[in-house]
């Protein structure tokens, strides 16, 4: 029998406060005079723990009896995501300049 893990209030509060603080850091980092690369590094560095905190605590993927199979289910599309990001997002040549006419803005204008 599976169970729904309901954490005590403290862990929800701690998670909530943590997410608020990380978001505040994110906004302040953009307002600061960092280089583009440093800003990107900070934003990625903050987005990852925020993502994990929401999935693990609020979505109950951590500590739940079913968490292993549900985490695997959630991670299942990772392969396809990697394929999409690597082969569409990053490497496809001429994706922006070599689009066929039917795929360009204005083609369907009547």
């Amino acid at each position: 029998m599976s169970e729904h893990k309901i954490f005590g209030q403290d862990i929800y509060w701690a998670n909530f406060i943590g997410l608020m603080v990380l978001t505040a850091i994110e906004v302040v980092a953009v307002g600061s005079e960092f280089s583009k690369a440093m800003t990107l590094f900070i934003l990625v560095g903050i987005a990852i723990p925020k993502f994990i905190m929401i999935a693990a605590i609020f979505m109950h993927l951590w500590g739940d009896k079913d968490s292993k199979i549900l985490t695997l289910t959630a991670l299942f599309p990772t392969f396809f995501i990697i394929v999409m990001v690597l082969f569409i997002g990053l490497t496809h040549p001429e994706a922006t300049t070599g689009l066929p006419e039917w795929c360009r803005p204005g083609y369907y204008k009547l």
Partner: protein
Amino acid sequence: MSGDYHGDDDHEHQSAWGPHDWSHGAPHNSWAPIIMSIGIGIFLYTVASAYSWGEMVDPSSIPLIFLGLTISFFGMIIWWRQDASFDGIYEPRATGTPFQNIQIRKVAMWMFLMSEMMVFTSLFSTYMRYRLGLTPCVEIYESGSWIVNSQTIDSGEAVNCFLPASELIASSWFHIAPGAINTFALIISSFTIVQALRWAKKPVGSVDEEVRRKRVYRYLGSTWILAIIFLTLKMVEWFVGFYIPEIGFLGLHEHDIVSLVNEGYTIHADHYHPHHGWEDTHLAELAAANPSEFEEYFANIASIEGGYVTTDAVMMADIRVSTSTFFVTTGTHGAHVFIGIIGLTYMTWKAWTGGYTPQNAVSIEYFGLYWHFVDLIWVLVFPFFYLY
């Protein structure tokens, strides 16, 4: 706290729309999803037929648009009437591997979220492709190549370049405010919905039922309000803008924060005029390194003052790809928030009538999974579309 397991015993469960046959593996049989799918299908098809690039091209489709919405709404009413009588006692569980003994609705929700992840990944990979593949507008502006190529307001030719929305949104604290407040609103709403679940799950006898009812509907209602705030601020950011009054002691001067659309950041922007304080430093370097070339191309339209080039020429940019990726991705996310509001409207009403008990509180958990997913997506959308 553990969930209560109740087997799928032979049982006739009376609902407002007839009995559910719990004995033949059809625990919550309903026409509602099929009816809603047909309605949404008609709606999407006719909207796509009626509009082209924001212009109404086929007014005859309008009755069909409303027909689709009406059918969807009818399906929703059926679903809600059935669910209103659903006491949650007969929560069916999967029997096959790998999800054996896990609630079927929970597995289904995770499967749905998986497919949603694919949708947003395709949007993100599109954004990455164009952001990395097209030259940034600021780079072209600073290089001065647009002057050489006569891509100016006078010539009518436009440079095809990428202008991320963050160039406008992250240009001041006031511009960034709606997006930042929305981020906090979504995080708070994730917190309020887990609190609603927590109170609904408290075992019978451990809490007064009236206190449970109030807590659950207040937390769900708070989530609803935060979702409304999110979409309202989104509209302000996209279409309306806002006014900053003169507040001397804070050092604020009276001015308007212009919305993205009024700024000209639209999907039609094939002749956008970027004007956000970019400096022609590269052109100045060119003038210093190669005075004869500068003289040949630029001297009649530009001059150097204090190390910077000033010019009366106005660069024009085709930013339709930039704006499309921004509006489609953030709009898809906004549509998910809107769908969440529809669900929350019903759930808040159900909670107000005392409809949630520890037995059926899993419904809040399943909706919560969706809502947290919407929050998760925003965790990625906000930094990469609004800040960077």
